[in-house]
């Protein structure tokens, strides 16, 4: 590679690189701000979850958890397969 090519590559890398870093971090600012707002509106000041002993915490799981688990995954699979009919 001759040297002007190399310099061009360097300039391109700088341009794209800094551009991408700014775009990425800007999006991160936006998404983080949004996330914080949503969390503070819909899950406001959550009672600080003390690391409860697990024995106590586990049974607290709602009775519907297992149906929920299967339901969620089966919905996912159904939707996936409906798109990928062979």
């Amino acid at each position, binding site marked *: 590679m001759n040297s002007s090519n190399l310099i061009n590559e360097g300039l391109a890398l700088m341009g794209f690189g800094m551009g991408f870093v700014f775009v990425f971090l800007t999006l991160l600012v936006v998404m983080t701000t949004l996330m914080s707002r949503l969390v503070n509106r819909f899950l406001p000041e959550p009672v600080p979850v003390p690391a409860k002993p697990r024995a106590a*915490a586990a*049974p607290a*799981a709602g009775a519907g*958890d297992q149906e929920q688990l299967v339901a969620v995954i089966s919905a996912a*699979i159904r939707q*996936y*397969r409906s798109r*990928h009919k062979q």
Partner: protein
Amino acid sequence: MDKLINLFVSSGIYQIQWGQAVMIVVGLGLLFLAIKKNFEPLLLVPIGFGGILANIPEAGLAFSAVENALHLGKPELIAQIGQALGIDSVDPKVIKQAYASASHSAHNAAAAVAMDGGFNNGMLYNFYLVAIASGAAPLIIFMGVGAMTDFGPLLANPKTLFLGAAAQFGIFATVLGAVGLTALGLMEFSIQDAAAIGIIGGADGPTAIYVASLLAPQLLGAIAVSAYSYMALVPMIQPPIMRALTTPEERKLAMTQLRPVSKTEKIMFPLVLLILVAMLLPDAAPLLGMFCFGNLMRECGVVERLSDTAQNALINIVTIFLGLSVGSKLSADKFLDINTLGILGLGIIAFGIGTACGVLMAKLMNKFSSTPINPLIGSAGVSAVPMAARVSNKIGLEANPQNFLLMHAMGPNVAGVIGSAVAAGVMIKFVG
């Protein structure tokens, strides 16, 4: 400008496939269950996170060099890989299938072509090779579990081993269920698949992962997720079954206090178990051997520093990589399959049947035993240590607030671990 387009074209937003998006949501769902619902978080946090990583479009973290080359490589390279595998096709899908069933040498030849072409194994794929394909991680975790297990209650009342045996019926009933579903044309499980699925009913994570990695690696993700999820759900799954199969009188039954167990007995037990394994079922030797080794380190009293490390630093390190490696099997093309639903359904049936058989066995033993046996401790035979024993205790206390069954239930509970490892050995022996 080319570069900008290139950047966008290879970005996740442009390339994401529907299945990957779905699986990222599934991964987030597992994290939610682990973090907010306390579903076995030590495993499900790494598994869920690994599942998300495995489905990042274009990153290929969960794929081997060959898979990455087939996805991203030029046609000539793909054709070369096909030749290395001894087939003529240039269709990546055909080649991928041939690769999945290739012999060790053909596998290596294809990998060499892919690497010569500049492709590499993804990070998670390497973790999987080292942690699971080698068999090391589940065995090391089992050693740690052995170092955490107290066989005292079992030694005080060895008959409770029968409860650990009875509860394994869930495993084999599930095998039958899996082949039944296949016979009915609803699923497509081989006998190996069925055996690996059945082991979910053993309620023992490392055993399930070990067996699945040997018999049905393509189902490993679904089997591990199912096993750990249902273990977390033991407090929901077991009580109704236990109540249905027992009368209030039976549940009130008080058991005689356990005799003290001497240090020497505790040291001898893992050796007795090891010798029995050596004589009867060499195929269970890796699993039960490491388990007994961990337990001997715990009880012998002269290698505390090794025992501590096995229970802490080592098991934690291995758990992190085991979890991420299992997560690597949650890539959309492997997980989003009707079989996964079958596995989830069969898994819960296995837990239910195992619980029921444990309770019924306890009722039977109570008839013939000189000392009373509360049927509620039978359900602990599925293992899921120590959750199942706690469930026995809780249901017992509901019936009789003076009746503490916890220590009595720990006997069948750890017996269940041995029972499912023996069942695993039988599976590996017959269909491995």
